[in-house]
């Protein structure tokens, strides 16, 4: 089969699955779930053929819309970067589909859930394969839509309905900038095709400006939930846990970073500086917030935000001279490397938390858990691997990818390096806190006391992801298919290597050690007891949500009401009805003249004669 057909199949299979479920299988939840899983397996098969079959940069493009000078095409740009991302999406996507079979087995609206997952897979693969910015935007919007559907899966809960709405609207704010960036790029460079842009870049004819990359970055700020548009991601945890794992941890939220790597040619130094600081700020802010969370999924959500901040910061750090003296796009390499390892261990952690929540009968408060290591051994051990990977225990995947970012920061910007090291300490701190409170000690609620290990359909994906979380960092385990990206990863050598290694160990010792000694598996938060002021500050999340809420309720809504008043009362009422009223009054006045009384008419006649006479006589 031609590679273009395979790529088309990757897009069409999940769409067909979604259409079949929506049209025919609405009430057949079991069948619907199998159809959707089969589609995910099909994607995995087709994309594996594409990735490992050695197909790269094959021509595949059809015209979608043609009006005047505007041509929008549906095309595929398949290089090593896209191959890596497609691998992450299809592999983790498939595992999460399988996990969902177990997790959603008692949900009455399973069909809708699996249709949503299929729509998501189609749109996410569309972003990965897209060869032009318009097409990225189209699928970008569609992942937002599927995210809306899946966050709002339990729509009868007001909180889920609000979270879905918030996610879509906040993303739209980011997309507002993104679309403007695309328009700017289109009019300044006359093309939005990624290959043509890259060609122009190497020919030196590319029009670069600060506006284009910064506007395009707005899209990433929305989708990858960077400051100040991060507010939707913690709320998005209202969705089912596998959705949080797939969309809000491993793939969709990483799409922002992937998109930045795709448009790397458009970057300018000033824009990179902004991107770097936004990422660093998000990493630090979210890590601080994570410390004070009680909900197992919220801890992971803030942790995701923080890790996304790492990736964005890595991208913003930009290029680096490697040891041969050549300049490599080390930012792209480090960001994509961390994206890949993060996809494994964060999907693992989320699915692990899903297994915990499923086992504890939908209890999500970590202080009501405890002692789970004995009752859920597979979940416990795989979760432990995930925690070890994210905190950077040596020789696990997270260790390598975080080191690459720290090394890059050390070489490029010491302030960023310092903040990221501190953030890494915090990461170790809050992850060990959660791990200890959830799994160790004694059960602190009936739900945790009656917890049971999940079935094979849920534990097998956990084991596979744990394997990935361990191996994804090893050079020998990384397929040659992704060489184009892997060679961009900055590698520390000599003295720098020693420094980074020692710093990593220090991070682990300080962060994990502090958490280990501070927290007890108890029903209350030790930090809250010992430092209530600090805890309250962290729990407030710096009142950013409150500020947005104030804006929406008190500013936007009131402004809208004022405009509504103007429209209804001033425009439709005073001006228009007023004009009509004046005309009406005039006509009433004129009507009184026509009284039908002959006397009145005679007087009017005389007045008229007098008037004309006066005119004729020149008195007026």
């Amino acid at each position, binding site marked *: 089969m031609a590679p273009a057909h395979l790529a088309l199949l990757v897009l069409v299979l999940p769409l067909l699955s979604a259409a079949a479920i*929506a049209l025919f299988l*609405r009430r057949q939840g079991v069948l619907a779930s199998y159809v959707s899983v089969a589609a995910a397996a099909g994607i995995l098969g087709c994309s594996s053929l594409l990735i490992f079959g050695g197909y790269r940069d094959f021509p595949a493009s059809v*015209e*979608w*819309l*043609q*009006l*005047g*000078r*505007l041509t*929008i095409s549906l095309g595929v740009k398949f290089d090593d970067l896209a191959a890596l991302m497609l691998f992450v999406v299809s592999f983790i996507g498939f595992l999460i589909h399988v996990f969902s079979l177990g997790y959603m087995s008692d949900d009455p609206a399973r069909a*809708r859930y699996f249709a949503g997952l299929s729509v998501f897979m189609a749109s996410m693969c569309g972003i990965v394969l897209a060869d032009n910015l*318009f097409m990225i*935007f*189209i*699928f970008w*919007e*569609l992942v937002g*839509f599927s995210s*809306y559907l899946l966050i*709002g899966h339990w*729509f*009868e*809960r*007001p909180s*889920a*309905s*609000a979270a*879905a*709405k918030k996610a*879509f*609207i906040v993303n*739209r*704010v980011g*997309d*507002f900038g993104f*679309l*403007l960036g695309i*328009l*700017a790029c*289109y*009019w300044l460079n006359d093309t939005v095709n990624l290959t043509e842009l890259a060609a122009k870049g190497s020919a030196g004819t590319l029009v670069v400006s600060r506006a284009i990359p910064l506007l395009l970055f707005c899209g990433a700020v929305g989708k990858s939930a960077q400051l100040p548009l991060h507010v939707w991601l913690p709320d998005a945890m209202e969705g089912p846990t596998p959705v949080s794992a797939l969309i809000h941890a491993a793939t969709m939220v990483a799409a922002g970073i992937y998109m930045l790597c795709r448009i790397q040619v458009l970057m300018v130094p000033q824009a990179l500086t902004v991107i770097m600081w936004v990422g660093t700020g998000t990493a630090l802010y979210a890590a601080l917030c994570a410390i004070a969370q009680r909900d197992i999924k919220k801890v992971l959500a803030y942790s995701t935000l923080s890790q996304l901040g790492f990736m964005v910061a890595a991208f913003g750090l930009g290029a680096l001279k490697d040891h041969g003296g050549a300049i490599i796009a080390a930012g792209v390499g480090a960001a994509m490397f961390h994206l890949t390892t993060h996809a494994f261990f964060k999907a693992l952690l989320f699915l692990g938390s899903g297994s915990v929540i499923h086992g504890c009968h939908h209890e999500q408060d970590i202080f009501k858990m405890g002692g789970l290591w004995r009752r859920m051994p597979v979940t416990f051990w795989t979760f432990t691997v995930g925690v070890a990977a994210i905190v950077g225990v040596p020789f696990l995947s997270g260790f390598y990818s975080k080191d690459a970012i720290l090394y890059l920061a050390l070489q490029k910007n010491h302030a960023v390096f310092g903040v990221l090291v501190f953030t890494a300490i915090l990461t170790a701190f809050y992850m060990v806190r959660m791990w200890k409170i959830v799994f160790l000690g004694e059960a602190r609620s009936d739900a945790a006391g009656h917890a049971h290990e999940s079935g094979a359909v849920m534990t097998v994906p956990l084991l596979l992801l744990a394997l990935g979380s361990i191996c994804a960092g090893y050079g020998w385990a990384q397929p040659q298919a992704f060489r184009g990206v892997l060679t961009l990863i900055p590698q520390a050598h000599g003295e720098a290597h020693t420094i980074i290694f020692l710093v990593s160990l220090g991070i682990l010792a300080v962060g994990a050690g502090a958490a280990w000694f501070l927290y007890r598996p108890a029903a209350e938060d030790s930090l809250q007891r010992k430092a209530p002021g600090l805890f309250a500050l962290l729990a407030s999340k710096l009142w950013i949500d409150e500020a947005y809420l104030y804006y929406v309720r008190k500013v*936007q*809504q009131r*402004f*809208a*009401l004022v*405009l*509504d008043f103007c*429209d209804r009362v001033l*425009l*439709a009422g005073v001006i*228009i009805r007023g004009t009509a009223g004046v005309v009406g009054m005039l006509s009433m006045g004129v009507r009184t003249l026509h009284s039908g009384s002959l006397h009145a008419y005679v007087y009017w006649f005389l007045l008229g004669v007098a008037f004309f006479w006066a005119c004729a006589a020149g008195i007026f």
Partner: protein
Amino acid sequence: MAMMTNFDPLLLAIATPLVAALILALGLSERWAAKLAYVGFGWPAVIALWCWWGYGCEPQQHGYAFLHRYSTGLDGLGISLKLGLNGISLPLFVLAGIVGFAAGLYAIRSQAARLKHYLMLLLIMQGGLMGVFASVDIFFFYFFHELALIPTFIMVGVWGTRRPTENGYAAMKMTIYLTLGAMLSLIGLIALYVKSGAESFDMIELRARIGTEGLLAHSQSHIFGLLLFGFGILVSLWPLHTWAPLGYGAAPSSAAMLHAGVLKKFGLYGLIQIAVPLLSAGVTARLTIPTTYIPNFLLPTAWHSGIGASWVTLLAVLAVVGNVLVIGLTTIAQRDLKQMIGYSSVMHMGYAFLGVATLSTVGLGGVVLLMVAHGLSVALLFLLATSIYHRTQTFDLEEMGGLAQHTPVLAAFFVAATFAGIGLPGFGNFWGELAIFVAAWPLSKVLTVLAVGGVVISAIYGLRAAAKVFFGQPSAEFAKVIAARPPQDLTWCEKIPAIILLAALLFLGFWPKSLSTPLDAALNARPVATSTAPAPATHR
């Protein structure tokens, strides 16, 4: 297609509903009335789709396919019934067929009082709509519009969904506004007839005449102004829009579907088909209106730079600031579902006006795509709003909630229609908006930024409405309604028209080329708004 030369599908599409209406008027039993109405609404839709299918293979004269001319006895005045379709009218002709069919199906199975008379009026409207977009002669273009407009007023006044006094006021306001708008545009069209010297209302002849003889620049400017505001009232250009939310709020659903979905597009269609190509110099000519009285800082930058104070700038500024932003924000404040849809429709017309103001093939093409997609989506929304009303007994968004638990299919349709309205890719609306945004950039970056900001606003009110109606838990009032009569999901009588509209939206979203190819050809066939019209010959 040589054997088909004497067969005129367009005349058939116009005549079928009109003849059906006539038969209904002459008296027919209720049972047969419904059957005849199926024919009256179905046949034009079949013909429209057939014309769409065969358009590419049809021989064309002067850019028009299916061209036929019938003498009216007024040939001396240059008035004859000339029917044909070009790439601009084809999409709208198809729109009229599809929306008419859906609205007709919905009306036939509705529980309206005096159904026979209602169907008769709706059939007259349908005939007029098919005629508007099939007419090549401006006189009949205008005539068919009036033919479709008058039944609207009657339907709002008699079959309105509000209290009788409110229906009466809404009908009166609509009548005054729309008659005024039509009157202004009629003066403009007559002026065009006189000033061009073509002695004909035939668009083809007018275009040929103006192409060779030219038209004095200041005549062009005056005529364009008349057409702009005349058509502008009909399409609810801010601040001449206040009839729309009120009228649509009161109109019975099939009438609202046909008016907001199709008939309202008459004005935009007139601007694109007549005003922009024929009055190209007038569109961009500097206005002599006394801008000196307005402080400079109040005028947008586009006014100073670029094309200056022309009709186009005025139109673009009114469209973006008025329709998109002011009305968009006003929509957020609406509590009444039907009013909200009415306001959102006014807001989306802002994008369309902005597209007209770009004067480029991309922008005008985007407007036509948006007109078709918006027509389908707004018709679907009005239909669903009525379906919601039947289940909740209220249009007040604050008194609903949690309906999706009882009516999942209705919720799915409504969410789909909402997302179509807010321009999600996969639905036709997206292409129209995107093309307009692309085209607007060279016109004015500031206006483009503001217009693109509208996508956030429409997401806010659209999703808010969906959440208030369907998600969360029912309000106290609605819980009582549910207890008294548990809401049923969509019946097939509601589902079939909804499926027709949604399928058309998705088709356009996935395969926009099916409309954009003939559209592109028609817009490229003649230069759109070359700013240098041929030098004026003599001042007539």
